[in-house]
């Protein structure tokens, strides 16, 4: 494989870190300048990331070594198609979220805005670091930074609820970090390398199957915590006390996807389909993911708090991605990986809508939404598009991923997982459609303004754009960001070797 040495990956990571410190230095007094740093960093980051897409699509990888500690132990970026996909998702959605955040925090007159934007920029820095990591050590480094950078956002409200949510978040993620540290040290001890390799490198480690299974379990535990895999999901609904843009970008895209991305790296790039097949753990993995999918779907039905309902839907979809990878077939992997992108655009739209409802109408509960569609048609229209998309109905992009996932279940000769996907689609319909119905067709509640009265434009425009994009990706999956090409390239790399 052709390797291109370039410092662009480093700049992609650094640009928001530099912006973070500029934000801190500018402070609350010049908040327009402070916000302009965020916007500039977001745009610059996206342009840097996107400028590398053509190179990746030619089948090359881009490499940059930050520092070498020891032979085989180094901080290094290497961008392959899979990492690029995640990088493009996170950096493109950061632009939308940046505009949205400005509308949100100013609309609510939030406190500690400087800290908020600082932590946000740090989070994005580490997310891109995760996407571009060449090996497990670099991954772990950025993963831990992400854990810490998210903490100030979770506790942003500084209420008792927020602080408790923060504690729970740290308890889960730091424990996971410790387990990961141990597992990665173990892998280094056994193989002398930590570099991700399409198709996995653990097959040559010579470890007994008991040790390999234990390591696999530890790694999946470590990354599964952030991915909300059951039974380690409990922190995610609790973390919904965070401001909505945080829930939108971090708890639907960056942080949780970092966990999923980690799981997929472990399944496809550390252990590899071949080894997992031999060990037989793929089936266990698939059952755990299926359990999560179904149970999270049912739990979502019972939530009246809109963001908590969305959180359980997130858990459900993340597990779907992991299930796609765990089935180890070509179509299921394609479906899982492309769903990372599709889910990101749809779920961020839903959270944006929840935030717009919170800011404009001060509504947080599903039961309060009767007739709100007349007041906020754009918001609720976007909500409807994204919700229909997540249920897997064409022409929205959710259909594409569901289609490939279902094909994958058939290819793996496991009909049961086909039913899992079907059940999940039914549950999606069950917990999303009442919201759409109530908001458009029920008689408005007394506190709903019966004419057009939308949230600030800073919020509405981003959510309309992300909603439209989910339709576009449903019709032309390869539009703009080339997600589909990157996905097929990543799958080719994995299967070509394994």
């Amino acid at each position, binding site marked *: 494989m052709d390797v291109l040495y370039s410092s662009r990956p480093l700049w992609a990571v650094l640009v928001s870190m530099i912006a973070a410190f500029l934000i801190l230095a500018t402070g609350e007094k010049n908040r327009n300048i402070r916000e302009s740093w965020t916007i500039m960093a977001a745009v610059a980051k996206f342009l840097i990331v996107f400028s590398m897409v053509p190179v990746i699509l030619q089948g090359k990888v881009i490499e940059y070594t930050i*520092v*070498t*500690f*020891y032979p085989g*132990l*180094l901080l290094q970026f290497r961008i392959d198609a899979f990492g690029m996909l995640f990088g493009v998702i996170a950096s493109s959605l950061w632009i939308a979220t940046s505009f949205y955040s400005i509308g949100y925090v100013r609309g609510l007159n939030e*406190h500690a805005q400087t800290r908020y934007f600082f932590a946000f920029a740090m989070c994005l820095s580490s997310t891109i670091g995760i996407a571009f990591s060449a090996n497990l050590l670099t991954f*772990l*480094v950025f993963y*831990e*930074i992400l*854990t*810490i950078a998210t903490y100030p956002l979770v*506790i942003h409200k*500084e209420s008792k609820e927020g*602080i408790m949510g*923060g*504690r729970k978040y*740290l308890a889960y993620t*730091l*424990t996971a*970090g*410790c*387990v990961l*540290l*141990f597992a990665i*040290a*173990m892998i*280094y*001890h056994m193989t002398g390398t930590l570099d991700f390799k399409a198709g996995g490198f653990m097959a040559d480690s010579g470890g007994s199957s008991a040790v390999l299974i234990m390591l696999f379990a530890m790694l999946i535990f470590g990354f599964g915590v952030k991915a909300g895999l059951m039974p380690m999901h409990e922190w995610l609904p609790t973390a919904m006390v965070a401001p909505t843009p945080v829930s939108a970008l971090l708890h639907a895209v960056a942080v949780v996807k970092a966990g999923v991305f980690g799981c997929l790296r472990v399944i496809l790039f550390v252990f590899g389909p071949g080894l997992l097949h031999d060990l037989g753990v793929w089936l266990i993995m698939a059952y755990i993911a299926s359990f999560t999918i179904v149970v999270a779907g049912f739990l979502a039905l019972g939530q009246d708090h809109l963001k908590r309902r969305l959180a359980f839907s997130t858990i459900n979809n993340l597990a779907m991605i992991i299930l796609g990878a765990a089935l180890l077939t070509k179509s299921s992997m394609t479906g899982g990986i492309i769903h990372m992108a599709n889910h990101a655009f749809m779920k961020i739209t839903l959270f944006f809508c929840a935030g717009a409802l919170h800011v404009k109408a001060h509504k947080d509960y599903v039961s309060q939404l009767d007739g709100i569609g007349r007041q906020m048609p754009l918001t609720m229209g976007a909500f409807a598009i994204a919700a229909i998309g997540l249920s897997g109905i064409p022409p929205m992009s959710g259909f594409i991923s569901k289609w490939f996932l279902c094909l994958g279940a058939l290819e793996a000769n496991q009909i049961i997982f086909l039913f899992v996907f079907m059940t999940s689609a039914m549950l999606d319909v069950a917990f999303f459609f009442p919201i759409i119905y109530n908001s458009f067709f029920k008689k408005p509640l007394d506190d709903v303004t019966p004419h057009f009265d939308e949230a600030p434009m800073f919020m509405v425009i981003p959510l309309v754009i992300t909603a439209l994009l989910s339709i576009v990706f449903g019709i032309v999956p390869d539009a703009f960001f080339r997600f589909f090409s990157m996905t097929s390239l990543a799958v080719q790399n994995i299967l070509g070797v394994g």
Partner: protein
Amino acid sequence: MAEQFAALIIVVPLIASLFVPVIGWWKKRLCYPWVVAVLIIPLISSLSILNTVMTTGKFSYRLAGWAPPWGIEYVLDHLSAFVLVIVSFISLMVAIYSKKSVQDNLPEKTVPFYTLFLLLVTGLMGIVITGDVFNLFVFLEISALSCYALIAIGEEGAPMAAFNYIIIGTIGACFYLLGIGYLYIATGSLNMADLANILPPLYDSKVILVAFAFFTVGLAVKAGLFPMHTWLPDAYCTAPSAVSALIAPLMTKVAAYVMIRLMFTVFQPHFSIEIVPVFTILGWLAVMAIVWGGIKALAQTDLKRMLVYVVVAEVGYIVIGVSVANRLGLTGAILHIMNDAVMMACLFLVTGAILYKTGTREIHQLSHLNKKMPFTMAAFTITALSMVGIPPACGFFSKWYLILGTIEAGQWFWAAALLCSSLINAVLFFRVIECAYLKPMEPAYAHDGGETIHEEIQRDEAPFTMLVPIVIMAAGVILLGIFSGKIISSVIQFAVPASF
């Protein structure tokens, strides 16, 4: 030139300490600039020595030209040069920091404070630089005696704590001295290099075994290794801020250095590993130190006392690294000597600055400190994250090597102890961070509504002389992490005994 620097490191602070009373008698306020100016010389010397060692390798300095084994020899290899840089750097930083703290808290005792301070630094550097086991004892006592006195001028309860420390510290020193006596009886030599040549045929001798046992226990007392740590919490906690900030990072680390020196230079590794099963015992003691230190730290409400117990746990880290007795573990231990020294110095400096500004060390009274002292708290947070083991701060990297070492040695429980300790540290430090950054004001102040309070809090940052060392240390925590690979490849890998 570098040879002369070896002598300067000891001679300059030693002579300068004798001049402090003279200067103080003439003009008291000149003591501080004098001490700071003097301590720059050891720092420059040790840096130059490290540079020489890195380019030309190990060298030695014969005191007054007497040839070893009769004369005293200063031996400068990668390990001692490395530790010298740490000691001289941190003592300079603490000296810079001490200005306001001494002016306000010990106005009567400025002169004795700075005299003893220089003596203590002399002792610590002497321990590291010397190549002679008896000379090492002399420096050990210089540092210990000045340390007892420095602790005793602290707050209420300090004399008692110092007295406890004297008793136990003297017992430790006696054990060490007895060990030397036994070695001298058996070999007739006190020079480390000479001993290393003479000893191997005598490894079966009971005398040597007893000497080794005395050394181990004596140094474990000095290092504050569980269960010989009982003197440490009170002594470090009641000492004046500037003293705690010097001894907490350095005393235990220097004792750990001597442990490495004796076990792997004077005695050969195969003696310490195969003939005496000392590392199994030390390793388990270290595990208990980590657990016990962590539990006790959790129970504290006083920030400084909490940190003191963290010191107890951190000693365990280094001893685990030594006890796994392989290259990776020892790399981790030596790296952790540096990292922990910088982290502990930073934490104790911050605690001192908080005490100086707010008059309290109680964790629950630290609310809104992020607004009052933003830079100090930022430094604290960075260091706290490093203690938890969040990359790219330096704590992560020493932990990484220590864990690799335990895995290679197959000591799963030791690895588990290290991991648990990170989690305990997370609880400890996030509790402080929560209080400082988030905790709402006490109800008594908050009667006029929440929002207005934010406006009222004025920035009240620590004085410049305190802030500069704190910020340098915090920057060091990050930089040492980022450049840990460089440090390992250029210094530490040569400091680990070649036989590994």
